[in-house]
């Protein structure tokens, strides 16, 4: 056998060995990686959020360049700047988050106003005649109103607290007497539908037996909460360390790629980075525009600036969840409109008693504006996902991770879609497939 053939034979054996080695290593990595992901699943969300934040704020970090300052200090300065802006934003928002007294007051006002509206709706005419629709409304909405009353009714502890606040408690000014009247009126509210009597041997009475497990489940919940909180400490750390990264992570992963795919992987990574960055930053801008439009609209309707900003911020953030974001904005907006009093709309000719209707119209207008102007303008074709896929993704997200799952469902779908499309396009361009 000649030297050349011998060399070729050895090379062939080496290739087989390499394949076997990589297959075993790959399988072990997948199994071990899967095991780790399962065991450390509590860390996934904080890591994703930290990574996303670092990704979102990377342009800020890149823009903040001072030649004579070391990279680490530049990053720290840019993060300090972002932190300061966020701190002031949250601080302003926090002022409008209702405290204990305001929460009780809101509950009382909402219950009173809802009941007043309902009674108005089913009221008989002065001649004592009711129209044909009234019995239907009573039959259909009556049970719903009972449930709403049950949900909004203050429990004995809350009632005591409300009465304390009504007289002036904890250094706070006393609650307006009008709202105390609402509270008394709420207490006198009777059920609209007479419930059927439950049998005396009802299983719901067996509460003492259930008390012990409830206690133990509470302690388990406490431990879970602690571990969840400690997991969230990772988020700022991930955010900070990814911010310090000056391309080292990318270089490391590229160094693992075989030479044949070197240029391909650079191009794919770059296009993915660009597409996902455009989508996420576009979504953020879209949420901001929605929040701003809603805030402006609410101010024009006469809602106080602070409350309008708070509703705008919450609705803008939740707008990242398609469909549901609008519904939540509607619930919050109309909820406030129902309890709002002494409102004077800045637009002449509007009747303050129909504020809830105006808020409903405003939310619809904002939703249409979002669909017709903001989304095409800000996102372009980056978010072209079929509505059916959107619905399935949101439901799946909520089943897997609750509210966070809903929030991340569409970005995940867009990321996967972009990754697959880019990968296949580049594989074809590089004549690999």
């Amino acid at each position, binding site marked *: 056998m000649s030297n050349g053939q011998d060399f070729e034979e050895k090379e062939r054996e080496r290739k087989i060995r390499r394949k076997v080695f990589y297959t075993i290593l790959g399988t072990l990595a997948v199994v071990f990686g899967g095991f780790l992901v399962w065991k450390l699943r509590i860390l996934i969300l904080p890591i994703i959020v930290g990574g996303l934040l670092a990704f979102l704020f990377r342009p800020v970090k890149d823009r903040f360049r001072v030649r004579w300052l070391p990279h680490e200090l530049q990053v720290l300065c840019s993060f300090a700047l972002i932190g300061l802006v966020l701190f002031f934003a949250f601080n302003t928002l926090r002022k409008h988050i209702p405290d204990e007294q305001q929460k009780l007051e809101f509950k009382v006002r909402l219950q009173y106003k809802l009941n007043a509206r309902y009674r108005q709706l089913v009221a008989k005419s002065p001649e004592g005649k009711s129209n044909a629709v009234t019995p239907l409304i009573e039959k259909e909405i009556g049970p719903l109103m009972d449930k709403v009353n049950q949900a909004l009714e203050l429990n004995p502890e809350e009632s005591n607290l409300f009465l304390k606040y009504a007289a002036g408690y904890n250094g706070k000014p006393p609650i307006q007497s009008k709202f105390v009247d609402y509270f008394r009126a709420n207490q006198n509210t009777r059920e609209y539908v007479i419930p059927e009597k439950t049998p005396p041997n009802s299983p719901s009475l067996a509460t003492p037996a259930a008390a012990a497990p409830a206690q133990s489940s509470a302690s388990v919940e406490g431990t879970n909460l602690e571990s969840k909180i400690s997991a969230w400490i990772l988020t700022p750390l991930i955010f900070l360390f990814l911010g310090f990264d000056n391309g080292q992570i990318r*270089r490391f992963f590229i160094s693992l790629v075989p030479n044949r795919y070197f240029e391909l992987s650079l191009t794919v990574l770059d296009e993915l980075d660009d597409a996902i960055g455009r989508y996420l930053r576009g979504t953020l801008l879209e949420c901001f525009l929605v929040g701003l439009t809603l805030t402006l609209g609410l101010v024009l309707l006469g809602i106080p600036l602070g409350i309008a900003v708070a509703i705008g911020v919450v609705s803008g953030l939740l707008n990242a969840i398609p469909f549901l974001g609008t519904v939540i904005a509607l619930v919050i907006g109309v909820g406030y409109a129902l309890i709002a009093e002494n409102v004077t709309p800045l637009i002449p000719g509007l009747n303050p008693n129909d504020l809830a209707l105006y808020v409903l119209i405003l939310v619809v207008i904002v939703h249409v504006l979002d669909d017709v102007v903001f989304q095409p303008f800000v996102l372009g074709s980056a978010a072209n996902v079929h509505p059916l896929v959107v619905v399935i993704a949101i439901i799946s997200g909520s089943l897997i991770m609750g509210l966070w799952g809903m929030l991340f469902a569409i970005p995940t779908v867009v990321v996967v879609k972009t990754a697959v499309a880019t990968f296949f396009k580049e594989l074809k361009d590089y004549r690999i497939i």
Partner: protein
Amino acid sequence: MSARKFAADKLLWEKLGRWKRSSPELDRIQFLKTVPFFDRLSNRQLKTVSDIMFERSYDTDESIFEEGQPGAALFLILNGKVAVEIYRETSTTRLAVLESGAFFGEMALLDDTPRSANARALEPTRALALYRNDLNGLRHRHPRTACQIYRSLASMIGDRLRSTNELVQMKIAGDTAGLG
């Protein structure tokens, strides 16, 4: 170069020399200084460029890129030999054999038009790759450095255009003489 910049460069160079006397980073910067493509850059600028370059190792006969693939990076040979060839159905035309310090695939720094030839390592080769979008990124972070690289690239393409024009003129002159 301003006195301030000169002093900063000197400081950086001394620091590198003192702390990393035989580090791959210093070797790489020293190597880049010898490449005509980067001869207008200061040491500090060379360090910036070196930071965004990827080092790759190729075995004998291993392909670096193929004709028709979209170009994404410029390659600079650290050591080894690279053949630039065009494969046709029946023949292979070798356009050049490049050695340490030479670069190829520079058109990829401008756009992703397909590669016009194949590049293949003739012996174990180490090369530095400069990715187009990383150079684009330099435009924002270090505009002067990026500008000087683009200037080198433009002047090199200008040189090539001039030699191509001369070749064409020579060919036209030859054809005219043949006809006459």
